């Protein structure tokens, strides 16, 4: 279907100094990144970070204002047709015809992408099974539940086997079992050679699914790395402490060799340590005892994606129940 990538073109995604403004408002503010062929790459960021805007430029729905971008080796400005021949998309918002049936939606998509009749039939059957909509095959989409609509859209996005697949918050609003099944299938598609670019604000999705993650906020990429690498930037372990005199305790502990950084919280503070936390703890406890500072709470854990996110953006992604959030969460008045 697609032609041969332009000479020197890179078969994944290549973006350099991309900027996009709506009027005076800069939604994407000079981002650069590169997605290798066959990789699963995530944009993890809060609402309004500019994720969808970036995707819309890459899939040629928005024209490129500033910077450079190529997808599957084709420049989005010079060769938009070739880009469109190389990609598949699952949009963030519902993009269905209320009055078409589930089957018609998929059939239309297959025809739109010039799939052969047998190929369409095979893929539609397979995907209806995956998203468990076989019983709804002849139902009009307006009669589907919200989650079913989403599943149908994902199925549609997976109809073709494009070079690069864009998924804009693919599992938004799905129940946990369905999400896991989607992840497995997406991994399967990836194993067949499709490069995947996804945006999400689910930590676990970014964590479990992607090879590399870019944390994006206010139109800028803050940091990029593997899930492991990003967590490692916070040190090996996080230790949460509440003491009788937090300020004094922080001053003392700053001097410890293995302490990388300290963040204050409302009632206590968090130490990021470069060594195994279980080994560091006795030294910490001794140091505080020596100064007659009493410890009331100790907790130790491995850094999670939530911690990484909060550390780099200074904010939480989702409204989670108190106590379930990462250690580094900043509560009002905490800093």
């Amino acid at each position, binding site marked *: *279907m697609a032609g041969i990538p332009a000479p020197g073109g890179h078969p994944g995604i290549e973006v350099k100094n991309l900027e996009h403004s709506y009027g005076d408002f800069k939604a994407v503010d000079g981002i650069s990144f590169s997605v290798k062929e066959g990789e699963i790459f995530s944009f993890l960021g809060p609402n309004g970070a500019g994720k*969808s805007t970036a995707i*819309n430029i890459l*899939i*040629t*729905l*928005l*024209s490129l204002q500033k910077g450079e971008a190529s997808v599957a080796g084709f420049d989005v400005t010079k060769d938009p*047709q070739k880009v*469109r*021949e190389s*990609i598949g*998309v699952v*949009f963030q918002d519902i*993009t*269905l*015809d*209320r*009055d*078409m049936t589930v089957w*018609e939606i998929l059939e*239309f*998509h297959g*025809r*739109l*992408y*010039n799939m052969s009749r047998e190929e369409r039939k095979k893929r539609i059957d397979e995907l209806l099974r995956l998203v468990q909509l076989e019983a709804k095959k002849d139902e009009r989409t307006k009669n589907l539940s919200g989650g079913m609509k989403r599943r149908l859209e994902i199925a*549609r996005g997976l109809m073709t086997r494009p070079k690069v697949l864009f998924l804009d918050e693919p599992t938004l609003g799905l129940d946990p079992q369905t999400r896991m099944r989607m992840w497995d299938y997406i991994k399967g598609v990836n194993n067949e050679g499709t490069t995947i670019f996804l945006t999400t604000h689910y930590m676990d999705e970014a964590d479990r699914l992607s090879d590399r993650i870019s944390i994006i906020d206010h139109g800028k990429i803050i940091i990029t790395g593997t899930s492991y690498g990003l967590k490692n930037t916070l040190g090996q372990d996080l230790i949460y402490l509440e003491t009788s005199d937090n300020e004094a305790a922080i001053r003392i502990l700053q001097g410890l060799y293995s302490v990388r950084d300290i963040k204050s919280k409302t009632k206590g503070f968090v130490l990021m340590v470069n060594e195994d936390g279980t080994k560091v703890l006795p030294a910490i406890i001794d140091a505080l005892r020596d100064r007659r500072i009493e410890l009331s709470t100790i907790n130790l854990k491995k850094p999670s994606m939530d911690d990484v996110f909060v550390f780099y953006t200074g904010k939480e992604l989702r409204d989670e129940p108190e106590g379930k959030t990462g250690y580094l969460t900043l509560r009002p008045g905490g800093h």
Partner: protein
Amino acid sequence: MTYGFATIYWRDMIRFVRFKTLLFSSLLQPALWLAFFGIAMSSSFDRLMAGVPVPPGVHAVGYLTFMAAGIIAMTTLFTSLFGGIVILFDKNWGLMREILASPMNRNHIIFGIALSGVTKSFIQVIIIMAFGILIGAAFFAGFGAMQVVLGVLGILAFVGIFALGFLFLSAGIAVSMESPEGLQGIITLLTMPIFFASNALYPVDSFPEFLKVLSIYNPMTLMINGIRYFAIGPDFLALGKHYVYTTSDIALSFFGLICFAAITFWFAWWRFKKAVVT
């Protein structure tokens, strides 16, 4: 990629047959026009004209026969102008993003919508013609079998090219608009002058000069010329006016419609190129 328009066509026809009430009312409306306006007007016009002498050798037709061509044109105009509305719905709530991000050439959206619009118009026109003849419109009177076939084909050719012109226009406007209300407003604004500044219901000769010029070049008039030529004949008398169409008159009318369709296609193409849907 070559048959992208067939996909768009397929999908638009699904919607056409799915909305049974809309389908039914789109056929009922012109029939009602013919039945009420046509019969009422023709009974009074035909009485008025009863005293007017018919020159020897000239074929005189009743008002119903005369205006049936106008009703066919009106129906085609409405259907075509509304034909693009699906694009607007797709843009706001539907499949437009999917289509625009797909490898299908964007012109095929225009072609697909146009083709389904023409199909709809053909179905309507055939039903209205049959109904018109049923209630007394003297279409194809005295024609041989071959002439009837030719006549129908000629009418469909004119209907087709006229429908294309307005479908392109409609698609171009629809893709530029934000809301269906806006589109509805523009369509209503357009249909009035197009319909009344034409020879659909009365001859244009008695119009003031300015309006007359406008009417003569009105695509609606061009199309109705063709329909009357193929349905009634090249030479007839209606409402006291003697109509004579030469072959070149009709060829010119057809050519005019082709130009109109070419211009509106260009307009639609330009609007689609500019369209941003996210």
